[in-house]
Every structure is written in C-alpha cells, then in structure tokens.
C-alpha cells in the first residue's frame, strides 16, 4: 500500500512578533515548523503502514528550505520525501496549491499506485481547511474529513473504515480506496524515531520537483496566476459571541437531559423565569 502525506511548513505562530510601531507581522528570524495538525496525519499514516504494510511518502510544496520539514518527517520513520519547489508556485492560494499537490500526487501514483492521501485538518497560518478537499476533488478521491482514527484497511477488498467526528458524536464510515483523509488534531501521539530513522533522515535523498518535474502542463494554473483569491483587507475581527455551551448526553435519560437543558437556560438568563411566570398568569 502506498500512502502519501501532505505536510506544510509554517511559521511557528508562537514566536511571531508584531512590530510595536508598524503593527505588521515580523517574519524575519521566526523559526518554521511542520504544521502541527499535519503531525497527526503523519502518525496515522505511519500506523496504517505498520499495521497493513506498504510505504509512506511525504510531500510538501514550498520554498527550498521546506526540505527541513521533509527531513524531519523522515526522522519519524517516513520512507520517502518529495519537495515541490518552483518560482512558478509562489503566491499560490488554496486553488493553486491543491492543483499543484494533486498533479504531483498523480505523478507519484503513476510510479507506485497511491491508496490513501492524508492531509491535516487545516493549517495554522492559512487556516482554510480547503487544500485537502481540493486535492480529493481533482483526483476524484473519496473524501473523509475530520477523521479521528483509522479502524481498518482492506487493501485486497479496497476499502477503508474510519471514525469521524461529527456534530454530537462519532460516525463510523466505510468507503472505497483510493481516498483522501483530513486528520483531526489530538487523535494520536507522534512517535519518536529510532537512531536508524535519524540517520536515514540526514542521508536520504529528498526528491526535488519543479512544476515541470511534477507533470504540470498548464503553468497558468499555478502560483499567483492560478490564484483567484484576492486579499482585499486584513483586520482584527470583533470578538465573537460567547462560546456555545454543551451538555454531556452520554448515558443520560431524556428527562435528565431536558432538566439539564432547562437548568442551563434559566441560569443563562435571569429574565426568563419572570417572563414565563407572566405568560402563565396571562393564560
């Protein structure tokens, strides 16, 4: 089985400074990290490989220095790494990014058929959560978003069963391979590679592909030219409404849940009790 994991190198947001005078983000000297969400995808891919066999390839699109992230991934035990880097990719929005990644995955697929593509749920810099679905759409892959665990893979029968977080609970879904999975955060703990993995990480070749190497034919779909998103304005949003409250419903009777709900409503609004009293008097 061949598993591809897409990872993005992002600035470590914990270390970004805002210039005290100009209020602009100071990127200079800010260390980069693998997008934290992608590490859950990476670990899950390695687990699938360890359980069902096969190999894991990591793929990133970014500047040449994104090679650091790939080597890091190799140190966790990934088998191969591909860096997509080309001036033509500069300024890509989610449409152009998913186009470039999908094209490269197609190329990898021709070399060695790809069964599962993993991405993180979203990134900490772009935050759109669009790239995964974008790749699935282009490659006509089954799409499983917000996955929390892989239950089973039947590569002979070409099916996969996963757990997915959904409103109010967990769904268990089964679908056919090949598929694309966007992995939820907090679902697993990244392993520590062995000494052998670490040595392999510094010695392995990282394949570097230009747009042409990756098989891109229409260069206008890449980079700034292929990116219809226009950033018109950047501003700090007003704080949102209060956080929604949740009731833990597991193992409770409907009456208990109803009690708890009413209790919560009355605590949230002092006015409510009086209003209801007035209403009942009116009736």
């Amino acid at each position, binding site marked *: 089985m061949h598993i591809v994991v897409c990872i993005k190198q992002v600035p470590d947001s914990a270390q970004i*400074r805002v*210039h*005290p*005078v100009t209020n602009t983000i100071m990127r200079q*000297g800010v*260390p980069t990290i693998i997008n934290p969400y992608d590490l859950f995808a990476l670990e899950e891919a390695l687990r699938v490989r360890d359980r069902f066999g096969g190999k894991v390839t990591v793929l990133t699109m970014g500047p040449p220095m994104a090679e650091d992230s790939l080597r890091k991934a190799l*140190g966790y035990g990934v088998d191969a790494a591909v860096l997509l880097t080309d001036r033509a990719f500069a300024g890509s929005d989610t449409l152009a990014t998913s186009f470039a990644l999908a094209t490269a995955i197609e190329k990898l697929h021709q070399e060695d058929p790809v069964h599962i593509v993993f991405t993180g749920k979203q990134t900490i810099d772009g935050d759109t959560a669009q790239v995964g679905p974008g790749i699935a759409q282009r490659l006509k892959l089954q799409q499983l978003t917000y996955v929390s665990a892989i239950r089973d893979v039947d590569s002979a029968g070409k099916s996969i069963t996963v757990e997915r977080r959904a409103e109010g609970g967990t769904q268990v879904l089964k679908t056919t391979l090949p598929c694309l999975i966007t992995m939820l955060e907090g679902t697993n703990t990244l392993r*520590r*590679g*062995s*000494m*052998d993995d*670490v*040595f392999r*990480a*510094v*010695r392995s070749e990282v394949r570097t592909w230009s747009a042409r190497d990756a098989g891109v034919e229409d260069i206008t779909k890449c980079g700034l030219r292929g990116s219809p998103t226009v950033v018109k304005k950047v501003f700090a949003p007003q704080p949102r409404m209060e956080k929604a409250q949740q009731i833990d419903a597991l193992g409770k009777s409907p009456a208990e849940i109803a009690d708890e709900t009413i209790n919560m409503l009355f605590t949230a609004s002092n006015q409510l009790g009086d209003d209801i009293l007035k209403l009942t008097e009116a009736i």
Partner: protein
Amino acid sequence: MAEKFDVIVVGAGMAGNAAAYTLAKAGVNVLQIERGEYAGSKNVQGGILYAQAVEALIPEFRESAPLERHIIEQRIWVLNDKSYIGTHFRSDNFNEERPNRYTLVRAQFDKWLNGEVKKAGATVITETTVLELLKDETGKVNGVRCDRENGEVRADCVILCDGVNALVGSRSGVRKEINSKEVALAVKEMHFLPRDVINERFNIQESEGVVIEILGTVTEGMLGTGFIYTNGESLSVGIGVIVSDLMKNRINPSTLLEKMKSHPSVAPLLKGSEVKEYSAHLLPEGGYDSVPELSGNGWMVCGDSAHLLNAIHREGSNMALTSGRLAAETYLELRDKGQPINAENLKKYNQKLENSFVLKDLKKYRRMPHIMLENKQFVTMYPDLLAGAAETLLRVDGVDKKTKEKKITKDFRSARGIFGLVGDAFKLVRAWR
C-alpha cells in the same frame, strides 16, 4: 550493527560547532549530536561575539553570519539604589573594516554556524540527547549512547561540548558534578524596540552597538552582574548571580532582574519596549580551579562543559570556539602521525589550552572567584560609598571642598576601617594579578 564514525562531537553550541567544523573540513568522518530541535534552539547567550575566535575558523564569516551590531562603546556601571557611577569607553577606532566585537542572537548564529558544519561534510543529528560515554574492555571511550531506540554509536574519539551542565561527563564517571558555588544562574529578556529608538537612546548610528555591564546593589549583596546589550532591533537585558548565593538568600533571579529594570538609570532605556523572550541559563564561573580533567582515554572536553569561561571579561563564546578548534586540531595531529587516540596522546590538547589565552587568562584571575565570594563588601558597601562620594563632590551647596573631602574619607573609614580598606585594595590587586 551500531554506526561507526571517526569522531563524535556532543553538542552544537560554539564549542561543538568549532570542533565539528574543523574536523569535517579536514575530511574526518564526524558525527555531531545535538539534543535541541536545531543548533541554537537551546542557547541563551546575551551575547557578545569576539571576532578573532570565529575568524580562526572561517576568515570571511562577516559576509554570511547573522550579526546584530558591532560594539563601539563599553560602559561599566556601579549601581546603588538611586545612582550609578561608572566609566564609558567609546572610540571611532572600533568602526573598522573588520570589527572586533559584535552583539548577536545565539539562536540565529548557532544555526548559521551549524549550517557551515553541515556544508563542510559533517553528519549532524538533532533532537537526540547523548546519555553517556561507551567504553571498551580496556576502559577506552569508544562511542556514546543516545536516548533513542538502537541508540549506540561508535567512534575512535568523543569530544564533549555539551555545555555547562556537563552531564555526559559526570554520568560517565570521567568528572565530578558541577557545584553550586561554581555556577551562576543568569536570566535574560529580549526587549524589542525599533532600530531608530535604540540608536537615539544609546547615542549611536546604523549598526553601531553599546554594551553596559552592571554591578552593585542590584544583586542584593550576592555575587553577580547585570548587562544590557544592543541588538539590531532589541536589547538583551539580564542579570546573573552565583547559584549558592541565590540558594542561601532564597531569592529568585527574576526578582533581581525586575529590580534592575526599574532602576532610575535603566528604566528609561527600556521604556515602551515589548518583551518577547525570557530565558534562564547557567554560566560556569568557578574559574581555573574549577576546570576539570580536560581529556582522557578517547575523549576531550571543551567550552562551558570544561568550565572555560572568564567571568570578569564575560568571555565564554571565544573560549568555547577556541577550545573546540584546538581539540579538533589535536585529533588531526594524532591522525596525521598515525598515533593512537589514548589518554597520553590527548594530553596535547591540555598543552594547547595552557599555551593559549584560554587557560592563561583563567589562571591570571584564578583567585578572583574565591575572593569575590568571601568579600561581599565589593558589591554591597562600595557602590554606596562611591556614589556618595561622587554626589558629595558634585553637589554645590556652599560647603568648601576640603570639608567635603574630609567627609568622604570619614565615610569610607567608618564603613570599612582603615585596615579593611587597605585589605580590600590588596585583595583586588592580588585577584587581578
């Protein structure tokens, strides 16, 4: 099968990078192991870089190394609670083509230097901690054990550049553990300010820089010093105090830093700055008498791990760079002569250090740490006496100068007594020689 290298360098700080670079350049199969995420990720120097020690490795380092400012002015301030008295030395001679001292941000500099190490051909692995030295049946060190599965790696020679804690050496029984009287704990903050503001406040232009060394009552009677260094768009502000004094007085160094920052002479320099980074680190300040065995059967130790730091002149990075280079050169000489890497032959490294400024300077100030630890009047009483004297002389209030001088002499005498004063002067001279 464990991997095998010619040499293993433990640590990617100043010492480790200098050693690994020198070896890799000479074609040695060298493995460098760093526990941090990348070289520099754990390093906290204030910090001043002395160009000579880097030039000895990479003559053209100024072209690509991340440097903040070159230093043109050095201030020494003796503070009491309200005042400072001090000396400033500033010279346009320091605005030279190849400046002598720079401020820098260690995280960036170490990363750059480690990049050069990789380019020179060393194998560098990170996020891997060396736990202990491995030895063969004869007791010769022949590798290290790391904190990963299959963590044993072999080599003919191990160079320990693991910094002040020196845990690898003490765990492996080649040295004793560090003592709280020998190490200072320094806390440091990075205060961000626009370049123009720094230039105005410190009376400098472009990439000129200023260093302020601070002693006196800010350390509350404990042995220690504070500092303010100008970086490009930030100030490194910190204070360091001997750990045994902190323990005795149960004072947290960050309390001292807060006090120093609010001093009326310091606060205006920091006004409006954004504090982004807070860090704490130990410094080996025991001097010559705390230097452990520098080499043994199959191993050498460099930099902070070997206690090579001159606290009086705040020189540590240059000693680390120089000792790392000399350890590597020792290995190269033995290799070229086909001599075995054993305890006797590695003594050449000790000799090289004895012949260099590193051990010569530490020897010169050999008595200083002891004298300072036992004579706290230098940091408690004298700052007040000096400031009092200056104020008495400068205040114009109708009192004649002779009376003023008498008052000053009386203040000094009643504080310390004539024998105390003469004794202190004598101690200082002795410590200096």
